[in-house]
């Protein structure tokens, strides 16, 4: 994987992880243009793009877009599942995650991502192991994630 971006419907970056060494300018430019490209696509359009020299896989969850740029030889479908597994992990950790959780606790989202993917490759795909690792590290911390009031809708049961 080359990089992963999380951004809102307004185009605000919520999380960015770069697995290839790029300069800050380049990252900013690439991120901005890719976000614009994806936001310009209609809801029913394909989740995979070949954009410039990149293969991009994205998916929208509520107000948040998850977007990965992958290597030429990587499989798009399995990347889509990587995204979904990450969302599941966030969901389990925060307890029905929503965009605000990620905004206010973005460092936690990074920690979870680092336990799930390392150096751009899947590190651990077992949900249990990932969360265990996070919890162990969290025990050092006095505060766990700070929770926000939940929407009333029941959650993961409605995964689509």
């Amino acid at each position, binding site marked *: 994987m080359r990089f992963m971006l999380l951004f*809102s419907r*307004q185009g*605000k*970056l919520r*999380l*960015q992880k*770069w697995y290839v*060494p790029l300069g800050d300018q380049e990252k900013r430019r690439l991120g*901005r*243009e890719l976000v*614009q*490209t*994806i936001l*310009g696509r*209609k809801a*029913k*359009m*394909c*989740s995979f*793009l*070949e*954009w*410039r*020299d990149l293969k991009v896989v994205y998916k929208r*969850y*509520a*107000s948040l877009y998850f977007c990965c740029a992958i290597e*030429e030889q990587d499989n798009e*479908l*399995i990347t*889509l*599942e990587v995204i979904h597994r990450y969302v*599941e992990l966030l969901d389990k950790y925060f307890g029905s995650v929503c*965009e605000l959780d990620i*905004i*206010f*606790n*973005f460092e936690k989202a990074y*920690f979870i991502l*680092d336990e799930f993917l*390392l*150096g751009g*490759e*899947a*590190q*651990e795909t*077992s*949900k249990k*192991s990932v969360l265990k*690792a996070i919890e162990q590290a969290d025990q*050092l911390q*006095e*505060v766990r994630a*700070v929770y*926000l*009031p939940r*929407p009333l*809708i029941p959650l*993961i049961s*409605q995964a689509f």
Partner: protein
Amino acid sequence: MSDVVERTLTALPSLLSSDPSPGRPSSTSKLGTLIRGITELTSKHDEEKLIQRELVSIKEQVSSPNTTMRQMKELMVRAVYCEMLGYEASFSYIHAIKLAQQGTALDKRVGYLAVSLFLNESHELLLLLVNTVLKDLQSTNLIEVCMALTVVGQVFPKDMIPAILPMVEEKLNHPKEIIRRKAVLALYKFYLIAPNQVQHIHSKFRKALCDKDPGVMSASLHIYLEMVTEKPESYKDLVVSFVTILKQVVGGKLPIDFNYHSVPAPWLQIQLLRILSLLGKNDRSTSEMMYEVLDESLRRAEMNHNITYGLKALTYVVQQDANLALQHQMTIIECLDHADLIIKRETLELLFRITNGQNVKVIVEKLLEFLRHSKDDYVTIDLGGKVTELAEKYAPDNSWFIRTMNTVFLLVGDQMQPDIPNSFLRLLSEGFESAEEDQQLRLLAVDSYVSLLQEQPARLPQRFLQVISWVLGEYSSVKEGLEPATVLRLLAPLLDLRHCSSETKSWVLAAMTKLSAGPACLSVAQELAERHGGSLDTTLRQRLHELQHLASDGELLRRVLPCSDGLEPLEVDSTLSFLDGFVSEALAAGAAPYKPPHQRQEELAQEKALSVEPYGLSLPLSLSSSSIAGRLSPTVLSMSSGLSGNSTELSPKGGSALRLEGVTRVWGKEGYLAKAALKPEEAAKTEVPCPLSVLQEGGSAPRTPVVSLPAPAPGPSLQAEREKQQLASCLFMGLGSQGAAGPCLMGKAEPTRHGFRKKVKGQGSSSGARGPSGDSASSSPSPLSAQSAMDNLLCSSPLDSGSTPSPADSAPSPADSAPSPADSATSPADPAPHLPHDLPANNRPCDAQEDLTEDTDTSETVVEGNSVAVVDPYDPEPLCLSPHLPEELCGLPRSEIRPLCRDASLVLSACCVRTDHSSLLVVFVSNASDSAARRFALQMTSGDLEVSRVRGGPEEEEEHVEGHSVAVYQYSLVPTRPSVHMELAGRASYQRPDGEPQSTPFSYGLSLPDFIRPLSVSTEEYGRLWLASSNDIKQNLALLSQEPDPLRATLHRLRDRLQLNVVDIIASEGIVACQLLQGPPCLMHCRLNAGCLAVWLRSSLPELPDCLLYHCQRALAQH
């Protein structure tokens, strides 16, 4: 809020941490305030002001000595947030490192995170992190070790790898699986950025592969995928292990939490399948070992048909069998008009794959149409390459080819891949089978260019102008009645064009010079000279002068620019050796020696940057290899041999016009798909020699089964449908008939057809970049919509729930379309134990691990078949074979005689003998049985070596090995390219006394030192050679420091072990030279430096220094 108050608040950690009230405690934190502040703003400008203020405040606080680590942590989180919004906070980088270094565990975590987000692996500040990482790796706190490994797996300075490598390696044996897993991934990262640093721990990777924890095992697969991609033949022995693991995964033996929506570990499965596909490629026996488990995996994976994405799958599938596309033609046609440009692009990609001689016109037209509207440069370049490739491969006739290429040159313009004009010109100049055709092609080109120049030359792209000039310069004489002076007058105005680059002007003038014969030309030349003689461009003036001179001297012109009838290949001296004299003169006169750009840059950087190891930088490999590639002429690179094909497509020349009649009839109202697929096949069977004619006359030819088309009601919708079907029949024309010839069509050219397809492109065109740039959406910073932000990510879908699946709706949701949902409910509950217990027993590499660390690892022979026993490396040598060594080879240095393979009667052994000018493989065939082995023959092949039999001619090809005797065979080995280890695969075949043929495979491993010879040169010669070589590598080597004279001792060890010649030792420096057998020299400059031997290797062959360095390291490591 005043600064004091602010600090007081943050100094009370309990305020935040112990606040359990639900509310929104986080939004009262400073980050929360910042975030809310931003969302309340309405303009980008306000946001910028706010963040700048924030950054100033952060900056002030981080540099204050009173700031606690805890506050620092909070500040770092805010700095990361600002950076994410696109504002630079580089002042905080150093503090992030400090936080990682000095913070307690919880602050450290944020420090490391900030470092990994702020810095990339080439950032110089990272060097300051090395000590922290070292310290944490040794920590007794598991979490700290984890953090250190996590950061190492993401960003770590390449040059510092040796400092922490032993520690990371050691972690592979850690009792905690999470540590082992992270260590494996850190090593994976090292492998990617510096493969030769981790070469010595390959055996430990095998251990990781056998780890009882599935997470560690799957992490090791990342490394194996890389290594297998690079060198599949070295990992064939692991096929069994991979197959076993896959079997267990598919069989559901992993712990249940590895399941993903009831598919057992899909990521792991895909990884394994990718590795297996690499190992099984072009290897029947290996593939056979996989069939069973592949079948099982497929059976369990429900195929899911997401139409749009299926397109992509289809694109891959048609590479194997183009006929499969036939079944989906109407879908493909639908997708061709799809609103989503991505899907349109994929469709074109698919069409590109199924192109053949009959549908090429329609498909190229579709591609060009897309090209005309494309605004994205990547797409344009990629499609331009594709059209060119198709045109060269399948052009139905010359004029179509020229027309198509003209369009490509016009549309793609100057961003075009440079090899397109190159190969086009090469095609014109080299021609193909018939001289008549060649002339016709040139004539057509000249004709079309003349008319293009007459119209509007100003609008032509530069590259096209260059092509035009060259062609007119070379071939305008082909056209009768076209006076050179006329051409000159057409070309001359190009020099006046404002957008015409100086390069293009040179092309134009070169063309004019070629044509300038006769008085009429002289006057044009003089006119030009007057007009442009005052140009500031010296090249232009030079060319003009040449033109003028040559135009007036016809004799000289013929000698300087002879008419090229037969094209003599030009010899290019890429090493520029003809400049040697000049260089040495300049050096003697005191000029500074030339340094390649990267070296200069590096030295510059060393002056500026923190220099930890002044002599220890190893250059990135890519640099050294690219420098050699850069020297090749582009034409060499773009050249590739044409593929031969065996398609039955025997279309007569010119017979490729669109023929819609006949074919359209295939499309009945009901079920046109299946029948369409069937019909052409049948047609092909009835008349194999010319299936095309059958297709074309389909309607009238009585023997062709025709599916009648019911007269459709002429409604508008039907009309549209019929148009689509017509289009389909054009697009898919020729696929069925090809199918009769064999399933493998793609990329193959028919031998009897037009000869444009001399050249087959590499991946360039198919893997190019593409993708339309979408319309920009509104991105004004609107207040964060509380509602949308509160939406649960997993439960609200962006799509309206009632929507029906359409081709565009391609985002497969995991619940119903996971790639391989082997439903665990349907899989039989297997009582076998879980993977962790099962794995080690099934993995051979575990047992073999010890052997692999030995130098003799490659002597292990993997043999299939039941009549042959695998040679046990510990088996004592059955016969003393050294007396059988040919006399002339006695006394020469040689390797140990090692057994290769054996069966009931024969034992094969071999050794490698080094003579001054060759390396000989001596194979001993001992027949221990009573009867003779008849018709004995040995075959050997290798990817890295050229193998040729030394003694004996073809009459000896089949011979007998008598009972109780030893036959000796000699083979000369020459490396084709240097590599650390080289493998030789062979097969011994003979007839047993009962006439039964017997065949035994074997393999033999050699290493680079077998092919290294000392190079005796004087110190002066060495200096010259040094300057002539590039491809530097620098590295520090261990010194034999316990010896009285460490430098001398170390160099002599290298001399003895690796046959290097120590040219000279002066004080603390030494120079060493060697040579690859029948290859270029490799030079080594050694210097004592801080208890190490700093070596600097150079060679004209990019791989050689790298490989040699590896063996130097080994030679010094062994005692």
